[in-house]
């Protein structure tokens, strides 16, 4: 049986979709069967980041409503053959996701895939709670700023109360993925420090993804950054996070400080 991961955050725009695609592609490159599932019904964009938007015929809602078979809705990646996408509907709204339907789809996917990675919508409403409901593992995506950290804290509370695991009295495995981390801004004190975020959220660190143009470039060509530019700093950080998800015990690499003009001017103050 495969493992179900929910990529969640509370806040929007922090990097959930980017991370779902990048981690999915990274795990698939380890020769494991991976499906990424878009739960952001109405605002789908995992298909764009995966470069599959023009191949979407059926979606999650069609499958749940019985209008399409699961196998008809799954889209195989053109670059990695064991990577699949289950897209969300652009036109329907999230009321079409029923708890029973979601449970059935997740259970089916678990039978065929090693990893089922669910890209959660923002917020703490129905869409987000349905995406996390059947997860075994949660990746909590957080930016190093106060409102993102507070929303993540809120989401962790939900993970510990509103999921099937929590209701059974089991503990949900939770990991912190700190994304859009800008070393220069951190040095200037414009962002929360890594240790402060870790202290506030008190869940283990999965990885730190630097803020990088490489992420934007990758999404512009419709590829997860771990496929588009595997050597880039964000891709390396995602590969490392994927290894840790797969159970390897390796230290987290801290992003390198960029030694630009700003770095020189501000290094004295930051010290």
């Amino acid at each position, binding site marked *: 049986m495969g493992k179900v991961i929910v990529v969640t955050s509370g806040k929007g725009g922090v990097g959930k979709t980017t991370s779902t695609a990048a981690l999915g592609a990274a795990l698939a490159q380890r020769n494991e069967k991976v499906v990424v599932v878009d739960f952001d019904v109405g605002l789908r964009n995992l298909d764009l980041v995966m470069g599959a938007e023009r191949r979407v015929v059926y979606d999650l809602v069609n499958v749940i409503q019985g209008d399409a078979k699961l196998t008809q809705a799954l889209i195989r990646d053109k670059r990695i053959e064991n990577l699949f996408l289950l897209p969300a509907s652009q036109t329907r709204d999230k009321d079409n996701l029923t708890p029973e339907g979601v449970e059935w789809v997740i259970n089916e996917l678990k039978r065929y895939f090693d990893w089922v990675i669910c890209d959660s919508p923002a917020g703490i409403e129905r869409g987000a709670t349905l995406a996390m409901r059947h997860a075994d593992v949660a990746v909590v995506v957080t930016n190093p700023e106060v409102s993102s950290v507070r929303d993540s*804290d809120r989401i962790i*509370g939900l993970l*510990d*109360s509103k999921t099937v695991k929590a209701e059974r009295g089991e503990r949900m495995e939770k990991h912190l993925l700190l994304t859009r981390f800008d070393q220069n801004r951190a040095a200037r004190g414009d962002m929360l420090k890594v240790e402060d975020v870790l202290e*506030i959220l*008190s869940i283990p660190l999965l990885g730190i993804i630097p803020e990088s143009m490489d992420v934007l470039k990758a999404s512009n060509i419709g590829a997860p950054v771990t496929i588009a530019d595997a050597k880039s700093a964000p891709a390396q950080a995602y590969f490392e996070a994927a290894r840790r998800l797969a159970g390897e015990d390796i230290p987290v690499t801290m992003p390198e400080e960029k030694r630009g003009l700003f770095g020189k001017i501000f290094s004295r103050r930051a010290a």
Partner: protein
Amino acid sequence: MTKVQTNSRSIRIKGRSFLAVVLTPDLPLDQWLERLDDLAARSAGFFLGRPVVLDVSDLQIDRQQLGECLAHLAQRNVSIMGIEGARHSMISPGMPPVLKGGRPAGDVDVASVEPVAVAAQSVAHDAGETLQEPQATVLQAPRSTLQSLLINEPVRSGQSIIFTEGDVTIVGSVASGAEVIAGGSVHVYGTLRGRAMAGSVGNSQARIFCRKLEAELIAIDGIYKMAEDLPTDLLGQPVQVWLEGDAIVAGKVN
């Protein structure tokens, strides 16, 4: 131990909304009012300035009778902050709001021979969080069996721990946007970033202890301080907070 007296800025909230006295009238109303007068005479000022909730769930009265009852209470300076158990048809504009979700919190001792039913009741309110629907983690136990509550994990934003029967100990931090309400003392073995309210059932001896103070609000027995009123030299420090008279006093603990 550094001790910072800050009484000049203390304000007493006349009973925070989480605890109110509940009056349950019975029929005939005039006899009940007589007994109420008797109680008020013997415990002077008992109702003065206290939030009182009128529980009419078991009362077969109509809108007009409820209006009269409220008027009689107003004459006696008993101001009703909310009505519980009222049918929609009983309420007219200008009446206190209808309350729901009250939970019993033990009887209030008013030493009377034939008491009017007076009970304390906690009313958990939406604390006005940025995200909706705070999940209230409500944990209560009978007074006789359990007087303290141990929470072995962080209290997350949006969660509230309400335990009016005694002390609450948190082994972990209390997040910004989270709250802990205890009848006794509050102990936080971590950083207190949210709100802590000790002595919430009327216990001025209750205290708040935390490893690191970054609280949004602290209150003891209804007297509170907001983040900006806290002495800045105590921020980030291990602190205990107690009450001296009507003043909140905070000091470092080592």
